[in-house]
């Protein structure tokens, strides 16, 4: 930003009713590589800005029609980031002061020294760039803060959910044992012909399936990891992706939904835990199927990058309402009917992705579809290599926000 301004980046607009002044200033600008646009009235200038914003505007105070001050106010109102250099009549400081009050970058008195004016234009552009950079940084900080808050909230929710799961597990085991005991009793010879035996058995089944459901929930919450810590295996992600798609295809076909697997160029091999990755993909595919309707297509895309791979699952379903986007990774957040979803699928997916040192993101356009992207490192445990990836993911998030 403090380097000499590359003229072709600077979008400049000159507004002055003196055509002679405009054309000589334009020529000088072109000699420096700046292609200015020109207008001879305030209204004309505003119309040009409406079509394509400018970084810097040079504006004459005295014009027929809409005066300079009014034009300046309009510009600042509609394009607050546009810097305006105000040109006042000879020795008219009053106009200049009013211009600065209205938000002008600076003012120069006519007749102006062109070199001086050009320097001012560049200064204005630099300031504009600096402010933009500040905006970007502020947006980045705000995003990081949001992510941290989200992370903390999820961690707190997760801890609580796990505590609850632990507490529920013991009474569940008692119900399970008691129901099982009753079942054993019913198998006794002397119980063979008791009245309403079938009814008792039916009720037992309900208890058992309820226990099963509870068990599934506590399983998922407390992590049904077969071995401590993820085990690194060489995984061909193309094969793994195809395999999970095949596993989900029957269910999808029943609803008239097709799968498509797309692989971008690059090596799909990573070292990670295949079982965990399969679980992530199954969770995402199941959600996609549930969100889709007949005739829809679900695309699973593999995009290798130097230090890892990005896997995305994209559906053409109803999308996620904006207000829900922040909550979809929360434990127990679900929009499905009871029994159809525990509200743990995405929570678990996110937790597993983080265990594998990856990231998961969502982009959704309400009514048009949803895309989940999982980024996994080529080998976990190499923090240095992940910095590059993070940058990639920032770009992605910006894009995502635009999309919403």
């Amino acid at each position, binding site marked *: 930003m403090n380097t000499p301004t590359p003229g072709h980046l600077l979008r400049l607009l000159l507004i002055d009713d003196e055509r002679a002044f405009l054309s000589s200033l334009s020529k000088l600008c072109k000699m420096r590589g700046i292609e200015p646009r020109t207008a001879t009235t305030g209204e004309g200038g505003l119309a040009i800005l409406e079509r394509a914003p400018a970084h810097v505007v040079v504006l004459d105070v005295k014009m027929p029609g809409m005066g300079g001050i009014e034009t300046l106010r309009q510009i600042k109102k509609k394009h607050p980031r546009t810097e305006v250099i105000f040109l006042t009549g000879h020795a008219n400081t009053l106009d200049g002061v009013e211009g600065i009050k209205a938000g002008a970058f600076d003012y120069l008195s006519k007749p102006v020294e062109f070199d001086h004016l050009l320097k001012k234009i560049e200064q204005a552009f630099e300031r504009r760039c600096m402010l933009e950079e500040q905006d970007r940084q502020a947006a980045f900080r705000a995003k990081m803060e949001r992510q941290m808050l989200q992370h903390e909230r999820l961690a707190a929710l997760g801890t609580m959910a796990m505590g609850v799961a632990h507490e529920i597990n013991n009474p569940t*085991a008692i119900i*399970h044992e008691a129901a099982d005991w009753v079942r054993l009793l019913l198998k006794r010879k002397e119980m063979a012909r008791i009245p309403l035996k079938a009814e008792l058995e039916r009720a037992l089944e309900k208890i058992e399936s309820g226990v099963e459901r509870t068990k599934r929930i506590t*399983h998922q919450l*407390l*992590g049904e990891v077969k071995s401590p810590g993820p085990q690194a295996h060489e995984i061909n992600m193309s094969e793994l992706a195809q395999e999970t798609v095949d596993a989900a295809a029957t269910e999808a076909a029943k609803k008239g939904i097709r799968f498509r697997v797309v692989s971008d160029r690059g090596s799909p091999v990573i070292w990670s835990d295949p079982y965990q990755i399969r679980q992530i993909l199954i969770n995402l595919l199941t959600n996609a199927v549930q969100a889709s309707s007949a005739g829809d297509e679900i695309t699973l895309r593999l995009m290798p990058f130097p230090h890892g791979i990005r896997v995305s699952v994209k559906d053409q379903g109803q999308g996620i309402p904006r207000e829900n986007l922040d909550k979809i990774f929360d434990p127990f957040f679900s929009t499905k009917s009871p029994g159809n979803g525990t509200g743990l699928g995405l929570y678990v997916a996110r937790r597993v992705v983080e265990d594998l040192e990856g990231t998961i993101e969502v982009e959704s356009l309400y009514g048009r579809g949803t895309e989940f992207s999982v980024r996994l490192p080529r080998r976990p445990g190499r923090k240095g290599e992940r910095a590059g990836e993070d940058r990639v993911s920032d770009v992605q998030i910006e894009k995502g926000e635009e999309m919403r």
Partner: protein
Amino acid sequence: MTTMLKTSTHVLLVDDEKDFVEMLSLKLQEMAYKVTPAYSGEECLQALEQNNVAVVILDIKMPGLDGIETLREIKRRYPIVEVIMLTGHGTIETAVEGMKLGAFDYLLKPAEFDELLTKLQEAKKRKEEQEERIRKAEAQLLLKESRKRGRMPFEM
């Protein structure tokens, strides 16, 4: 199912949840096991002193002397008693630690009864085999000692 037991295996069931112990005991008794209940690690060790127990079913999470400490103590005092651990889902690490300390196996709570019965059978078998090996080794020892003294304990 598994009712071909000749003599009933003596099982010590240790869990601080009394209702759980009661229900599981009834089920095991129904399958012809002899069950002694204990509601803490301390009670478990006492019970082992007074009974000839083959297999201990041990809950990992208990107040007081916890499962792992209890297991360590069982293995120190009664190395050939087999232990099957019952763990919650989040405590697989503890289960692994327990296996390293000499537990026979572990089951996730709530466990399927058939699975528990299978594990009990296997544990009992391993204990019997171990006892058999000890008996043979002792016989060898006896033989060696009697040879040293110049006479056979019995005709061969």
